[in-house]
């Protein structure tokens, strides 16, 4: 039985029937959940995108062809939301990467209190995002905000409207997002830095490489794989992020921070249209796939040029 299924023991022994039963009982539940999650939502969203399906009456299904897409393409905020999201993602990820790299390199050095500081950085990653929203809306508020008051009091040349004006709302959201999520970069980069063989640096030193050259020719190439995957994951998660925008600005003022996830949510729970929400989600997935392919292709090319 086990042989026919192609199941063998890692240790090389014979698979007993009781082993097989136990393995299947333990393996299958998680397996089924994952297969279900990896396929069902995509298929459902794809099908729903071609149906008219009001949220309050899920049983009434009408096939409408491309109607959802045509109506979504005419949505006044669709293009705005996608361009907002691209700006939001690229800007916040760039800041997170640069700052994250700098802080990771710093925390990789040896000095007293390093481990405690690492702990603080890690905590910044796990505390609730809703609390981050409270903090920044409190500190930047024009009535009670301490930062708002300090900028006014010291006449600093910083636009002081933050989330309240369409001009400053997006930069403010980007700033808070970068603040909340750069610790993720620090920790993944730091974890990789610690695995780099010290003798590589010693060899580079013997060859007369200065600190900058050691970073360029030892650290950066060793970090590259983890940078590629971290940037990819974080880009996807940031592009799909609903909560930080919903909690900070809810897409406003005057749609200046609206992104596709916010649009999907509003389409679902304010317009009650499952079909149009699915159509927008579908466009999001397509955008991400195109971006991913382009990104990985560009990475392959740069690899070739390096070698």
């Amino acid at each position, binding site marked *: 039985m086990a042989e026919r299924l*192609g199941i063998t*023991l*890692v240790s090389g022994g014979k698979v007993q029937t*009781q082993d097989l039963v*136990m*393995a299947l*009982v*333990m*393996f299958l539940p*998680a397996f089924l*959940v*994952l297969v*279900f*999650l*990896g396929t069902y939502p*995509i298929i459902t*969203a794809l099908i729903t995108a071609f149906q008219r399906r009001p*949220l309050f009456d*899920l049983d009434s299904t009408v096939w409408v062809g491309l109607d959802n897409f045509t109506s979504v393409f005419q949505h006044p905020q669709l293009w705005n939301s996608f361009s907002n999201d691209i700006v939001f993602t690229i800007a916040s990820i760039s800041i997170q990467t640069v700052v994250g790299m700098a*802080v990771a390199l*710093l925390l990789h*050095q*040896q*000095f*007293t*209190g390093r481990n405690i500081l690492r702990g*603080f*950085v*890690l905590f910044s990653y*796990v505390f*609730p*995002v*809703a*609390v981050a929203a*409270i*903090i920044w*809306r*409190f500190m930047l508020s024009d009535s009670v905000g*301490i930062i708002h*008051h300090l900028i006014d*009091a010291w006449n600093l040349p910083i636009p002081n409207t933050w989330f309240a004006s369409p001009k400053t709302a997006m930069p403010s959201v980007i700033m808070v997002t970068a*603040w909340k*999520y750069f*610790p993720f970069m620090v*920790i*993944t980069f730091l*974890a990789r830095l610690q695995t780099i063989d010290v003798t590589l640096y010693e060899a580079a030193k013997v060859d007369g490489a200065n600190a900058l050259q050691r970073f360029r020719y030892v650290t950066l190439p060793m970090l590259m794989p*983890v940078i590629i995957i971290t940037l990819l*994951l974080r880009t996807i998660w940031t592009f*799909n992020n*609903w*909560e930080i925008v*919903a*909690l900070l600005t809810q897409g406003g003022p005057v749609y200046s921070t609206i992104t596709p*996830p916010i649009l999907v*949510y509003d389409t*679902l729970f304010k317009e009650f249209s*499952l079909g149009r929400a699915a159509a927008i*989600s579908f466009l*999001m997935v397509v955008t991400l796939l195109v971006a991913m392919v382009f990104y990985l292709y560009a990475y392959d090319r740069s690899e070739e040029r390096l070698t």
Partner: protein
Amino acid sequence: MGVEATSSQPPADRGARGLLRSREQQITILYLLIAVTIVLILEVPLIYMTVSSFKPGVEVYRVPPTFFPTEWVLNGYQELLELSNMVIALRNSTMVATLASTLGVTLSVGFCYTITRFRMPGMRFFTILMLFVYVLPGILLMIPMVRIWGKLGLTGGLLPLALTYVSFTLPFSIWMLRSHFAGIPLELEEAALVDGANRAQSFIKIILPLARPGIIATFIFTFILSWNEVLFATIFASSQKNVVVSTTLSNLLNERSGWHSWGMINAAGVVATLPVLVFFMLIQRQLVAGFTEGAIKG
């Protein structure tokens, strides 16, 4: 560490002034200063929220603003207790996160045990599928989730919320646990099997105790993830009865349920962060190890 590195320096290097030490020591001090600045930028906002939650109502509106309260009061917490559903939310969040983590970790334990002990066909395809699930947009999951739970008549409830959390924390717990199971030598279990134990007994008596630290860490981290989640909570747990901590916070913040004082909102933030802080301290070490495996959910 920096002191050790410079201890071999000749005493003359100490210079005329006590502050001017060796170059290495200066660099070390510089590093420490920059690092402390970074931590201040990261943590001062949290501290400011915490101390502000103890300010009397009028002090929050004082110009110029104060950092520390001139008078420490519990008004914010009192308001929170009286005017919000934070108590119900805390209870609900604890239930949802406990259920989600228990189920999720149980599934992952079984899964990780099997994949580290048995070789199965199609595992490579499956690992790719798992990565795919890992990056699937939450908003996309929402559409079928709303449909499924709607069909089962469970719209707006804590059970669908917990089950949704199981599904989205599962790829993460599997990644985090896998290395713990892979790290247990096969010989230990084989020895028990040779001694006449069956596989179930060896699993319970040998494998589970050895994997316990990893299991606890994974449990706590999935608990934190479920506790912090906002999107699915907003959909499934928005009613008065079914509210969870993150929906209470976002409702207070967005003032959907009336006007709220900043003292009360800050107090809510502190209350929501405390469990995360405590749990974080318990598993900080394992969490670093989990990151080293390159497995974390954003």
